[in-house]
C-alpha cells in the first residue's frame, strides 16, 4: 500500500492485527481504505472479526499491530471521545434515564454547545428521522424501530463525518429492517457522511453499500462493489458466502488463454474462466450461479442432468438436479410463458456459458 494512498483515504487500516489473548489473531493483516462519503459494509460469518475492527476504529480496542488512520492521521493513541466518530450500537445503547431529547443533546452538552443551539440541532435531527413528537419520551416507551431511529439521530446530531454501525437492524423484523435500510441509505446520501456498517445479512450488505468487505477468519476475502462481489467472486469462500452457488470440483487439464479446461470429478469436461485457480494438474472449484444455467443442450458447457426435486416459488421454480456426480446442483427456471416443464426423475440437459463459470481455489 503506498504511503500516498494511505494519506488520501478518509479512513485507512494499515496492516492491522488484533489479538485478545496473545495466542490467536482475531484480525490478521487488515488493509482497508475508505474514501470520504463512502458506504462500506463489513460482511462475514459470526466470529470473523467485524465487531473487533469497528471497535478498533472507534477506539474501544487497541490494535495489536499496525496503524489506523483517520483523515491521514494515525489515531491509535487518540482516546475514543476525541475521535468524533458517531456510533450506532446493536442494542442502541440509549441512556434509559434520559428522555429522547436529553439523549440527543448529550453529545452537544459535552461539546459545550449553547442551550439554544442545542435545542435547534436536536429539533432538526429529530425531524430528520421523523421523530419530532417524541422528544419527551423515555427510550423504554419507544418501539424497537423508533429506538433505532433515535440511536441513529444521536450518532448524527453532533455532525460526525464518520458513522459506525454494528448490526443496527439486527433486532428488527424483516419489513421494518427493509424500510430502515432504505432510510439509512437515504440519510447517507443526503448528509454525505462516511459510513462503516457491519452486518451478517448479505442482502442488506448488497443493497446498501458502495463497497462490501467480505470477512472470514480475520482476513478480508474480497473487497468489491456489490455487483462485482456477486458476479465476479474471487475465491471459493466469497462465491459460496454471497448468494447461491453451484460448485463443481475437478482437476485442471489445460489452460487456453483466459480459460481453463477442467476434468470434473464426475467425468464431465468443462471450460471455465480462470480467475483464481492454480496451474495445470491442480484441483479447482468451478462456480456457476443457478440463474445462469439454461435447460438446453447447446452452449459451451453442456451435460446430462437428472431432476431430483422441484420447488415452486411463484416467479421461478427451483430445481435440484444431479449433475456430474453432485446431487445438489440448483437451477432456477424462470416462470416465463412457455418455459420448460420438468418432472422429478426426468433426464434433461443443462448448459452454461464459459464466462459464467469461474474456476476458483479448491
Amino acid at each position, binding site marked *: 500500500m503506498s504511503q500516498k494512498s494511505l494519506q488520501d483515504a478518509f479512513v485507512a487500516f494499515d496492516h492491522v492485527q488484533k489479538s485478545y489473548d496473545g495466542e490467536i489473531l482475531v484480525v490478521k493483516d487488515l488493509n482497508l481504505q475508505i474514501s470520504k462519503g463512502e458506504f462500506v459494509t463489513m460482511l462475514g460469518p459470526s466470529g470473523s472479526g467485524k465487531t473487533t475492527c469497528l471497535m478498533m476504529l*472507534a*477506539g*474501544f480496542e487497541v490494535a495489536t499491530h499496525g496503524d489506523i488512520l483517520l483523515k491521514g492521521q494515525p489515531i491509535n493513541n487518540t*482516546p*475514543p*471521545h*476525541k*475521535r*468524533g*466518530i*458517531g*456510533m450506532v*450500537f*446493536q*442494542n442502541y*445503547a*440509549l*441512556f*434509559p*434515564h434520559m428522555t429522547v431529547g436529553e439523549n440527543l443533546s*448529550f*453529545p452537544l452538552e*459535552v*461539546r459545550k454547545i449553547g442551550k439554544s443551539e442545542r435545542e435547534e440541532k436536536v429539533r432538526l435531527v429529530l425531524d430528520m428521522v421523523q421523530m419530532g413528537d417524541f422528544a419527551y419520551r423515555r427510550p423504554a416507551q419507544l418501539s424497537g424501530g423508533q429506538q433505532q431511529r433515535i440511536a441513529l439521530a*444521536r*450518532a448524527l446530531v*453532533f455532525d460526525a463525518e464518520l458513522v459506525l454501525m454494528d448490526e443496527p437492524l439486527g433486532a428488527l423484523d424483516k419489513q421494518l429492517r427493509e424500510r430502515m435500510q432504505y432510510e439509512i441509505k437515504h440519510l447517507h446520501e443526503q448528509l454525505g457522511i462516511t459510513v462503516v456498517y457491519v452486518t451478517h445479512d448479505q442482502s442488506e450488505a448488497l443493497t446498501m453499500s458502495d463497497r462490501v468487505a467480505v470477512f472470514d477468519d480475520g482476513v478480508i476475502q474480497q473487497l468489491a462493489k456489490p455487483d462485482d462481489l456477486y458476479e465476479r467472486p474471487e475465491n471459493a469462500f466469497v462465491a459460496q458466502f454471497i448468494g447461491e452457488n453451484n460448485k463443481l470440483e475437478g482437476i485442471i487439464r489445460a489452460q487456453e488463454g483466459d480459460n481453463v479446461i477442467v476434468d470434473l470429478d464426475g467425468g464431465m469436461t468443462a471450460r471455465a474462466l480462470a480467475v483464481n485457480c492454480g496451474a495445470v494438474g491442480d484441483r479447482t472449484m468451478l462456480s456457476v450461479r443457478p440463474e445462469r444455467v439454461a435447460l438446453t443442450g447447446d452452449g459451451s458447457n453442456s451435460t446430462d442432468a437428472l431432476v431430483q426435486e422441484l420447488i415452486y416459488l411463484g416467479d421461478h421454480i427451483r430445481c435440484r438436479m444431479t449433475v456430474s456426480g453432485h446431487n445438489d446442483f440448483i437451477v432456477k427456471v424462470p416462470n416465463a410463458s412457455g418455459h420448460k416443464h420438468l418432472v422429478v426423475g426426468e433426464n434433461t440437459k443443462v448448459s452454461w456459458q464459459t464466462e459464467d463459470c469461474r474456476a476458483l481455489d479448491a
Partner: protein
Amino acid sequence: MVPPVHFTERVTMTDSTDAGPVLAADGTPLKKKLAQALFVSRARAFGLVLPLLAFILVSFIIPILSLMVQGVKNDTYSANMPASTEIMKGWDGISEPTEKMFAALVLDLIKAREEKSIGRVATRVNREVSGTRSMFTKAARKAGKLEAPFMAAMLNIDEDWGNIEVWGAMKVSSQTYSAAFYAAAVDADYNADGSFERLDEKDRIYVYLFIKTLLVSLAVTLACLALGYPVAWLLASLPMRTSNLLMILVLLPFWTSLLVRTTAWIAMLQSHGVLNNVFVWLGITTDETRFSLIYNMTGTIIAMTHILLPFMILPLYSVMKGISPAYLRAAKSLGATNWTAFWRVYFPATIPGIGAGGLLVFILAIGYYITPALVGGQDGQLISNFIAYHMQKSLNWSLAAALGGILLVIVLAIYWLYDKVVGIDNMKMG
C-alpha cells in the same frame, strides 16, 4: 345457510341462560365446582405458608404489638393501689389534696404492704418524681398504725406528703394508659393536669441520642457507600474468575461471628493494638500520644462500617452487573470524557443500588446494638444501647418500649421518605 355447528352452539347457549346455571359433568353447578377446586388449591398454598406465618406472628408481629402497648400502658399503680387510683380520677391535679384522698392513700398503702407490692409502686412513682421512693416505703411501714385525720398523720411522717408535685406524680402513675413514657422518651415531663413540659437543658438525653444515632447511621452509610462503590464496580467489571475470588473476600465477614469480628477490631484499634503500633513505628505519632481509636465514637463508626459493608456492596454489585458496557462506550463515542461518562451515564444507572444498599445499611445501623456496646465506650453508645439498658438494668420496660416505638416510627418515616423520593419499586436487592 347456517352450518349445523352453529345450531348446537345456540342451543347450549339458550340452555345456560334459560334453564339455570351451567352444570359440570357430575351435575353440580359449574360455579360451585370451580370454587371447590380453587378452595382446595388455595388451602394447600395456605398450608404451605402457615408455619412461616405462625412463626412471623409469634416472633415478630406479637412482640412488636406488645411493645407498642407497653409504651403507653403501665398498671403497676392502678392494679395495686385501687382506692387512690379511683379517687385521683376526680382530682384536677392543681388543687390541694383533700382528707379523702389521704384516707384512700393510707388504705392502699396498707394493702400494698400486705401484698408486698409497695416496692414496685414506689419505684413507679419515683420515675415521675425522684426521691419519692423512700416516702412510700416509710409511710407503708407506718400506715397500719395511723388514725384519722389521715392528712395530719401523713404530714407527720413526712411533710413532703403535702407537696402537690408528689400527688401529681401519683396521679400520672395511676393512669393505666398514659403518654408519660413517650414523653420521657423525648425528654419531656407529662404533668398531672395533662400538659407536657420540656425537661431542663441538663436533663435531656434521649433526643440528643436519637439525633446522634441518626448521624452515626448516616456517617456509616456514607462510609459504606464510599468504600463499597469502587469494590462493587471492580466486582462487576473484572473477569469472572478474579471477581469470584473478590466476592468470597466480600462475603467472608458473613461467615465469621459478629462477636469475633468486633473483638478483632478491639485487637486492631486499641491503644497498644496493631494500628497504633504501626503508626508509632511509622513515626506518625509517638508512644505517649497514641490515637484513641476505640471505646469512643471513632471505634463505633469504624467497626460498624466494616460489619455493614457487605450490605452495601451486594445490592450495588447486582445493579452494576446489569449495566451494559455499551452505555459507557456510547457515552464516550458521543464525546464524553471518562469522568463525564461515569457521572452522567453510569452513576445514574447505579442509583437503585445505592438506594437499596443505603436504606439497608442505614436501617440496620439505626438499631445496631452489639458493636457500639463492645467498642463504643462512653460516647459511642447509641439509642439501642439505652433501650437495652432500660430492659436489663433499670427494668423500666415501658420507657424501653417507648424508645423502641419511636425508633420504629423513625425507620418507617425514612422508608416512606425513600419511597416518595426514589420510589420503592426502583430498589434492586439482587
